[in-house]
């Protein structure tokens, strides 16, 4: 069935013009192979200084003039889209996230990974960003584990098995960078499936495949493997570096993962990092459970003992496993002796923001911006940057639906990607109350009336009660009822 791969070889699906370009580039590469150096009229030494595809940073404006793309706003637009898509599912109410993840990163090191459409080569780019990703991942999910698998010569190999230390993985990855042969989804999935099946049910099993190849050569029927993965609740996601491949798409759809194809390096990085925050837990997969964990105490000063991890005597520092009294060097980790998961309370705290995500900000409609009688705040509430362009025409601004404070682009991004709480809401005592209980009740109430569509209406202006009420007076009751 993986023949789809093969067919695609001849008519790759165009996800977007990006791929067309890529194909074009491929063609160009081939020529290069023939005449040795790409004939852009640049001397070899000069090529390093000229930037690739400079024309792409130009766009035609309405008057047909070429002008540089305003990359900032573009980037922000993308970001907002992502945010939306992320929250679209969760707008109705807060949802569970897979906080304790067991993720296998599958890196395709087949022949295709040697392609040069990413500079210097796909493989290198993948490795580079994989490293970034791994660090980011552990920063965001301190309680989670990662394993690395590579595909090469049609065979999948386990590079590192599930573990919690970024350095360990990164080192292993950088050690193993050469590519050859075909790639095989099936083998990879089988291998990973074997490992992930042993993971306790509360853990969220995930596979992230960084796929360079345009085909997969499998010993058997991938479809069955995919079904197998689906059965054992493994969420498979793929980030492609070439054209979109049907089989990958299918895989992701079946297992509830996401499939994306990178246009260029920056885009690839973006797509990759989208997998760092914990994914929403799928109802049928989610299994609540109590996990036994230890909160080891710092070993007192002057206590000498041999640590399990390095087997050398350490004075002071380190932590002692509360159950078996073994000494470990850093947290979080799994006790080498009794296998108890050891964490410190801040590690838990790190994940709390996933439980209380902040709603995306609404873009302030331009109509509001330039009608004079509307007095809009002149500064970004967060960073005090002026929201007015030099030409005194107001620039983009986002408003928090709860506290209605206005923020500049950068704060908007920073707040949602790193800070995870809205300065406006945090610095207004009374905006706090609705944040936790009230919505719940309102929606409960709406459920009673089963006014689904109406519910959506409220949600869209969550927090800004005034609006909600004006829209539906029926809601008004509940609002009163909740305050």
């Amino acid at each position: 069935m993986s023949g789809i791969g093969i067919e695609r070889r001849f008519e790759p699906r165009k996800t977007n013009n990006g791929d067309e370009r890529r194909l074009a580039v491929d063609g160009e590469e081939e020529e290069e192979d023939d005449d040795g150096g790409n004939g852009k009229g640049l001397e070899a030494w000069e090529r390093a200084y000229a930037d690739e595809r400079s024309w792409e940073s130009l766009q035609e404006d309405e008057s047909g003039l070429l002008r540089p793309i305003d990359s900032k706003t573009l980037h922000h637009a993308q970001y907002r889209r992502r945010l939306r898509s992320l929250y679209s599912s969760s707008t109705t109410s807060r949802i569970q996230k897979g906080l304790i993840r067991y993720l296998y990163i599958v890196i395709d090191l087949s022949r295709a990974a040697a392609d040069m459409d990413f500079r210097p080569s796909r493989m290198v780019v993948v490795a580079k960003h994989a490293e970034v990703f791994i660090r980011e991942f552990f920063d965001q999910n301190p309680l989670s584990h990662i394993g690395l698998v590579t595909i090469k010569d049609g065979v999948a190999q386990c590079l590192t098995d599930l573990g919690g230390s970024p350095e360990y993985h990164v080192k292993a990855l950088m050690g193993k960078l050469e590519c050859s042969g075909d790639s095989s989804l099936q083998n990879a999935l089988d291998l990973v499936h074997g490992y992930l099946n042993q993971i306790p049910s509360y853990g969220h099993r995930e596979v992230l495949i960084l796929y360079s190849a345009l085909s997969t050569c499998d010993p058997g029927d991938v479809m069955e493997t995919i079904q197998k993965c689906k059965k054992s609740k493994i969420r498979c996601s793929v980030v492609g570096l070439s054209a979109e491949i049907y089989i990958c798409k299918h895989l992701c759809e079946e297992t509830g993962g996401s499939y994306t194809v990178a246009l260029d390096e920056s885009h690839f990085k973006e797509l990759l990092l989208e997998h760092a925050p914990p994914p929403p837990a799928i109802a049928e997969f989610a299994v609540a459970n109590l996990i036994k964990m230890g909160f080891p105490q710092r070993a007192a000063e002057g206590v000498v003992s041999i640590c399990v991890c390095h087997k050398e005597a350490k004075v002071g520092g380190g932590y002692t496993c509360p159950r078996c009294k073994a000494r470990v060097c850093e947290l979080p980790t799994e006790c080498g002796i009794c296998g108890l998961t050891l964490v410190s309370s801040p590690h838990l705290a790190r994940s709390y923001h996933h439980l209380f995500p902040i709603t995306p900000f609404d873009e302030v409609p331009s109509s509001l911006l330039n009608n004079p009688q509307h007095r809009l705040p002149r500064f970004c509430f967060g960073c005090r940057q002026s929201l007015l362009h030099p030409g005194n025409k107001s620039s983009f601004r986002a408003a928090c639906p709860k506290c209605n404070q206005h923020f500049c682009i950068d704060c908007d991004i920073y707040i949602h990607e790193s800070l995870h709480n809205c300065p406006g809401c945090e610095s207004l005592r009374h905006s706090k109350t609705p944040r936790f209980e009230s919505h719940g009740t309102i929606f409960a109430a709406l459920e009673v009336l089963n006014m689904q569509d109406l519910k959506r209406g409220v949600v869209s202006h969550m927090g800004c009660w005034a609006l909600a009420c004006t829209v539906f007076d029926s809601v008004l009751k509940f609002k009163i009822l909740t305050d």
Partner: protein
Amino acid sequence: MAAGQVVMRAKYKTSVKDPGIPGVLKMTWDKFIFTPNDPRSSGKLDVGFKSIKGHMFSKEGSKKALLNLTQYQGGGYIFEFDKFPDRDVCRDFVGKVLGKLQSVVPSGQDAKVVSERSPATVQDEQLSPEEMERRIKLLRDASELQKLHKEFVITGILTEAEFWATRKKLLDVDGSKTSKQRVGFKSAMLADVRPLTDGRTNKVTFSLTPEIIHQIFAEKPAVHQAYLNFVPSKMSEKDFWTKYCRAEYLHRTKNAVAAAAEAAEDEELAVFLKDDDILAQEARQKIRRVDPTLDMEADEGDDYMHLLDHGILRDGIKETTDLQYELYKRTLSQDLNRHAAVVLEGRALEMELGDTRTVAEALARSKQAELATKISDENAYQERLERASRMTEIEDLQAPRTLPFAPLCIKDPREYFDSQQANALKALGDAVAGTRPMNCTLSTEEAYGSFRELISEMRAAGLSDPVVKPEVSLKVLNGLTQHLSSTKYNLGKSAQESVLDTLPKSTKEELLHHWTSIQELLKHFWSSYPITTSYLYDKVSRIKDAMSHIYPKLQEIKESVQSDFRHQVSLLVQPMLQALDAAFAHYDADLQKRSTRSGDRPNGFV
């Protein structure tokens, strides 16, 4: 003495599957003899124990009572006994004998010896020789591992299996080379071999590798068939391939005329040139039930009436369509589809591609098998087909596959804080701290009012000069400095690294050794909780005893070292003792729990 020899009725088998030859097994101190009941049978054995490396056997309760005597040079003798007791008698005897023999073998083999000598080797599966090899190798490489192994496995505290279970990783690592994954059929189109021409002479050379040949066979049944028929009976392998290549060449050069001509006078060649009728009929039946996911254009590409190549040209050379010779044409799309089909069958032979002949036959065999199965799993094929068709449906028409998310409602986020605060403050040593209510005697507006006054009066008055009294600030500075110097002392102590190196070598060694062994034991100890089976139960007790033996040893180390190191040593030993104590405590507690729980099968969670 009775133990001098053992005679037992048993079956001798070459492999576990084989039914075996019934007979009598007689073991003496130096050799064992097997005499079949049926004198005519070839199964007579007379082997000296010297050549026997070790022995393995099926575990109690498995369907067969087996004993396998493995030889140093691979392979081994498998005996099946009627009942386990008999087997055990032999097993123990063999154990003794080997033990005696190998106690005299040079220590070089020590590792492999011990690996087998353990009295209670419970194997849940017959270990393959190479698995054995790997373990032995590991032991030889890692002296420490070997020490542990000696210490525990031989003394019977741990069983072979247990010992290795914790080291699966080690085994896998070098096991990974022999990975069980099968490689898919190469997707590269090796089958159409490109001729290489050297400029001067007008001679072209084709180079065929076994792999290529394999693919050719797989993709061109006719060629395959021909090979089986002709070689070597009718022609040598060499000229078979030369013919084939010649045909290929004709195709490549696209002169159907020549092809026709040649075909006329040489019927073998014709085989290659003509269209593959096996394929043709395969294609026909395929058209009946097209697997839409796989096929670019099953209806057209495979049916031979159709010729225009969908504009895809091999090597971009325009083909001159000449109807009368069209018989001798293969279109690229046909090749592609055929190739795709083969790849998708994804059947790679489980044999290294060496001799062409064998490859051909193997292929043939697998073909047969396939045909056999084909009929059987018709229905399986059907459902697979319909799944496929579901997949190929246009996405827009499909229902969105978004799965519902699990909702989450947190009652009160304060909880999270409270779980922190209490002890965080305790660390700072003021117990009263935390949420001590500020006794605000005045109402909000009062408070704000007076606050504002303070500010405004300050605006009027300006800063009070001097900001801080010299004596106070001096006191503060000194205070801080003292605090620093006090902490500095602590830091200084911790600075000196790795206490171990300060100790005399012997002590260090000893300590480390004990440490490792303790680690080993503890690992097993904890991993066997919760105790769910009686097996685990006695394992734990075994380990516990072992640990209680180590305990005093640690103590005496402490005494033994001379006074100047005593402090460090005791410091080092302390954690180990603690660890042991923890284990013991846990053990007792668990015992308690289970004893209180009435007789039912113990599975207490700890």
